[in-house]
């Protein structure tokens, strides 16, 4: 068996017509990566997913084996061998090849993708760049005072969410990790915690808050610096604070008093910060506030990560190249420059001339200039489902679903690695298998032994 193969945890064979129970299966829909799911499997589909949230149930129950070719070339069915050959030709003939996605692939497959990019002197980027990429930049500037979700469950008595709506994006966040659990130092669970939510709209998560603070749109930076000033004891003009943040000074002052008084504060932050004007400086402000708070009490911050293994992508690309995303190898060594080597830019600036899109859908999620350019270049797409991206690909692979059909390792949003326990086998190859086969052919074309 190849080292790092996702087949290391192959599913146990199903007996036709009989039910199979998978204990402690791992849900890879979102960054919570809940690993306590009980699956009931019949033949080649999951009929029940106990303890999964609404998003997790939809994930598990809708990933049955799809009756479609494992590979198409220019929309026509092709053999996997033909697909691997064509993919390797595309990647090795380009002058500016890019590889993007990876956040819904296990770490073992991510590692192979980085190797391919290294061989072809290409650019690798992950969906982090359009998610918490700005936070990744902020981590480098400020650092990250952080902890595991286990520590949050056992210690966190002041739980804040900023620009994040876990009730809809991470439905078990409250119950499994942050608000409801009875922890080692919080025997009464929710009653021992204060929940604060800061957002520009009253999201469904706001119902869970003890204190909901609705700030002016695009004023996160100003609101966070208001708190930074209060943490440092700097005098502020209440009228200016109200005008800039849309919130009375007394509300911020009261919040700061509570933050200073807690024993273990946590700020979970979302894309309300990173996708809004300011982007990385918004994240920097929040991380700096968290750092500042440690002069008074223990305080940590964590980005709420979206895809199941987007955190793994950050880790794998970091330990392979030294940088988390947006990494260019054109000079034979890795260079990191968000805004230049990130995929939104290499496409919208019409620089990339071929691409491989792994478990992502830029044809649905990218800006129109980026999508228009992607439509003009040959690219390879790997996905479990048909998407606008797979439909326009020169070579499309229908791959097995990680965590349902294949094993491997994923990283939870708090950088804790978690193994996958697949439920049933798929006739389609895993993305690890596809990428490994493409890597072999790329090396052959380039004369690398």
């Amino acid at each position, binding site marked *: 068996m190849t080292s790092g193969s996702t087949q290391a945890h192959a599913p146990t064979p199903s007996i036709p017509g009989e039910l199979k129970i998978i204990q402690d299966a791992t849900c890879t*829909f*979102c960054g919570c990566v809940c690993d306590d799911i009980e699956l009931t499997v019949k033949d080649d589909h999951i009929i029940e997913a106990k303890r999964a949230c*609404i*998003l997790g149930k*939809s*994930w598990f*129950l*809708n*990933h049955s084996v799809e009756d479609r070719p494992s590979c198409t070339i220019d929309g026509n069915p092709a053999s996997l061998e033909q697909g691997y050959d064509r993919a390797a030709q595309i990647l090795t003939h380009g002058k500016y090849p890019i590889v993007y996605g990876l956040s819904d692939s296990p770490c073992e497959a991510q590692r192979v993708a980085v190797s391919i990019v290294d061989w072809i002197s290409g650019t690798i*980027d992950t969906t982090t*760049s*359009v998610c918490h*990429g*700005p936070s990744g*930049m902020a981590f480098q500037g400020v650092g990250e005072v952080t902890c595991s979700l286990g520590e949050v469950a056992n210690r966190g008595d002041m739980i804040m969410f900023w620009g994040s*709506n876990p009730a*809809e*994006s991470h*439905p078990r966040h409250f119950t499994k990790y942050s608000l409801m659990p009875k922890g080692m130092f919080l025997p009464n669970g929710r009653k021992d915690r204060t929940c604060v939510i800061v957002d*520009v*709209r*009253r*999201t*469904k998560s706001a119902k869970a808050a003890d204190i909901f603070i*609705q700030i002016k*749109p*695009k004023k996160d930076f100003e609101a966070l610096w208001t708190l930074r000033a209060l943490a440092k004891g700097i005098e502020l003009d209440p009228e200016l604070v109200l005008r800039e943040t849309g919130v009375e000074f007394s509300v911020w002052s009261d919040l700061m008093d509570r933050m200073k008084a807690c024993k273990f504060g946590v700020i979970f932050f979302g*894309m*309300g910060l*990173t*996708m*809004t*004007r300011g*982007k*990385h400086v918004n994240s920097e402000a929040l991380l700096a506030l968290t750092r500042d708070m440690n002069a008074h009490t223990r305080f940590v911050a964590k980005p709420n990560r*979206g895809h199941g293994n987007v955190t793994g992508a950050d880790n794998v690309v970091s330990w392979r190249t030294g940088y988390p*995303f*947006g990494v260019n190898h054109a000079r034979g060594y890795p260079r990191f420059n*968000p*805004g230049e*080597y*990130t*995929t*939104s*830019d290499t496409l*919208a*600036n019409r620089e990339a001339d071929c691409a491989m899109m792994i478990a992502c*859908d830029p044809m*649905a*999620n*990218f*800006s*129109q*200039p*980026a*999508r228009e350019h992607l439509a003009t270049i040959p690219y390879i797409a790997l996905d479990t*489902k*048909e*998407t*606008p991206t797979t439909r326009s690909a020169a070579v499309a692979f229908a791959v097995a679903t990680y965590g349902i059909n294949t094993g491997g390792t994923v990283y939870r949003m708090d950088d804790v690695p978690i193994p996958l326990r697949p439920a049933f086998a798929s006739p389609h190859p895993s993305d690890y298998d596809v990428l490994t086969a493409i890597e072999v052919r790329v090396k052959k074309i380039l004369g690398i032994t």
Partner: protein
Amino acid sequence: MLETFILIPGRTTDQGCGVSEGKFKDRYQNAIRALQVAPGDMTRLGLAEGDRVRLTGEEGQTVEVCITAAKKEELPEGLLFIAYGDISSRMMTGDTHGSGMPTSKGMEVTMELVQKAVA
């Protein structure tokens, strides 16, 4: 002079479930094609459920989309909400301001009525 709104795309449960069901299926398509407008704005502008409006962004990019009333108090007046998807992406520009991230929330747009809903 058209009024300027701030467009906030984001996650919804239906959009998330729809991704797993399939992006070409009804649940996902319905989720990403409904623009939520604050009830106060709808009343003030004489808009009704199902009306078709045109959004125009800062660089002239446009989309047409049907509107639905946001749940009470969920959206303050002046803000618009839509689930992430094709329409929200079309309102993004290609510029990432050196960050790799296009401005995907807090986009300034104008909104004008294109067609009244069929009663």
